[in-house]
């Protein structure tokens, strides 16, 4: 692939979403998984939290005009727990989210974000609190995630953030689209497969 895939910084306006343990069923209700492409998912992000059964809007940060156009999501603890559905980060990405800052993340969700080139970074609870309140006071404030300096900058503040080092590296180095990397070791893969006795039905001596 010729395009530049390096993700070193992500910046934009931010959207604070308060709450611990926000699971993937809430991010994208299961009925919207009845599809064979991800294309339409942006409009269904947090659907049941944003809309009543009659289709009228509820109060939700994703509906709040002050945060319209925001590309960075700020969350609390254990965000993205539950199902492995990539539909969850896909719906957020198609809604316009390019980076997520939170107190902690579920593992499969974080991995799924990385495979889409979306950085998911962790900050201390008190720093998340400050970041959320700054953004609530000034929704136009630009928030910048810097994966090289491992910090998030906004207004006069700069807070330290971290993430799994291997995820950070694949983003910074532009190798988060892992297929090409894995494919480059096809010969070694075949050799390994030949050593695994169960792949031959235990018919030959390993």
């Amino acid at each position, binding site marked *: 692939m010729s395009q530049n895939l390096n993700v070193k910084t992500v910046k934009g306006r931010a959207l604070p979403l308060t709450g611990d343990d926000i699971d993937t069923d809430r991010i994208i209700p*299961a009925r919207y998984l009845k599809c064979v492409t991800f294309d339409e998912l942006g409009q269904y992000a947090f659907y049941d939290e944003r809309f009543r059964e009659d289709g009228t809007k509820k109060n939700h940060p994703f509906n709040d005009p002050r945060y319209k156009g925001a590309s960075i999501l700020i969350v609390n603890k254990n965000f993205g727990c539950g199902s492995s559905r990539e539909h969850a980060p896909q719906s957020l990405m198609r809604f316009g989210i390019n980076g997520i800052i939170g107190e902690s993340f579920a*593992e499969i969700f974080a991995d799924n974000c990385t495979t889409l080139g979306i950085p998911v970074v962790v900050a201390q609870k008190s720093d998340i609190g400050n970041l959320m309140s700054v953004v609530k006071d000034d929704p136009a404030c630009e928030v910048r995630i810097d994966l090289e300096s491992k910090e998030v900058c906004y207004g006069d503040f700069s807070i330290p953030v971290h993430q799994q080092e291997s995820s950070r590296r694949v983003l910074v180095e532009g190798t988060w689209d892992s297929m090409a990397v894995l494919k480059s070791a096809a010969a*070694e893969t075949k050799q390994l497969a030949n050593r695994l006795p169960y792949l031959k039905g235990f018919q030959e001596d390993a």
Partner: protein
Amino acid sequence: MGENLFNKVWKLHSVRELPSGQTQLFIGLHLIHEVTSPQAFQMLRERGEKVVYPGHTFATVDHIAPTDDQTRPFKDPLAEQMMKALEKNTKEFGIKLFDMKSQKQGIVHVIGPELGITQPGMTIACGDSHTSTHGAFGAVAFGIGTSQIRDVLATQCLAMAKPKVRRINVTGKLGKGVYAKDVILSIIRKLGVKGGIGYAHEYGGEVLERMSMEERMSICNMSIEGGARAGYVNPDRTTFDYIKGREFAPKGAAFEKAVDWWKSIASDKNAKYDDRVELNGSKLEPTITWGINPGQAVGISENFPEVGELPEDQQNTAREAYEHMSFEPGKPVAGTKIDVAFIGSCTNSRISDLREAARIVKGKKVAKGIRALVVPGSQQVKKAAEKEGLDRIFSEAGFEWRGAGCSMCLAMNPDKLKGREICASSSNRNFKGRQGSATGRTILMSPAMVAAAALNGKLVDVRDHLPN
């Protein structure tokens, strides 16, 4: 120091270390279903890729499968579209599909083991977080996203960071009416829903050693609900006896060779772990959830917890849970009225689950006004249950007896809660909206507890309702 199973299997499947520090991990068995795979096949087409080892991927249909009328075309056009896409993709790329007419269709985590496809020492991936179920056989098994499904199809490998390994020892002996479900809910209650993040869990101890394979599967299944992407039990005689004779199991001399290899990948006696946790199984009681995540669990003899008595970092979610559930802190959980009873899901829809529930239901009636359904995990489980007459026991009691699928666990098919209904459910997630109604409420418990709740119209202690 010796080595644990997880590290041994990981090492055996490591193709190389990637510059990022991740491992290029070979995946010995890849399972796919209709929901998370179509986009991966589309990515292959867009990139002009093939499936490199089609013989190591197996497919079935479960999430969208209607459980009442399974004739084609499905009544729901979206479900039919997904089924057609799976048929087309598996045919085009040469992948074995267990579809409705195969008589082997079912929930992916039920059919892998029952067909003998799931075996110890394998690395197993599937685009479903409950893939940890297969860890019951001593496999390294975990859920992946769709882009990772693409990677496995195109390369049979994943780029993964190796987790740490935690040994969870369950000592003692479970009392009557206390089941695998109660053990795993208690573990998640103890460690919290994010306690397992960054870990693979090795479950062991006297309680696990005495358990059947189906009970071990229920435990490993819910590893992810505690944050652990993988969970496993070391393979032993129980494991080997279960596998022997199944369709895809090694036969004859190959089986003996397999057993030797399977024994060799088990954790060494003096294996090292990154963390250890103990739980006394003798002290556990039937356990239910009261909130909106599986860690919000209590024993049936307890009261709904006061928010202030919970650890501080759980209090926000607890307040949100009470707002959703409308239960009253301090009141006993027993006696809570239910509207729906659901026995099924990849956690608890196997023959032993149905037998235990039927034992409680036999000769009794579902309480008035309760909608109750039993959904076998696979066509083979259904057939076996019908052979034993379990279907009649359930039907005569007023349960609906359905076809195989994920059903009301996740509401991607016609089986759903309506409005504010409260469901006693043998499934794995009590998230808001999980069972298909944004305001619906889920109480997780063992299949036996669901059966007892259905008969009484409210939560009861199943130990008071066991036949002699």
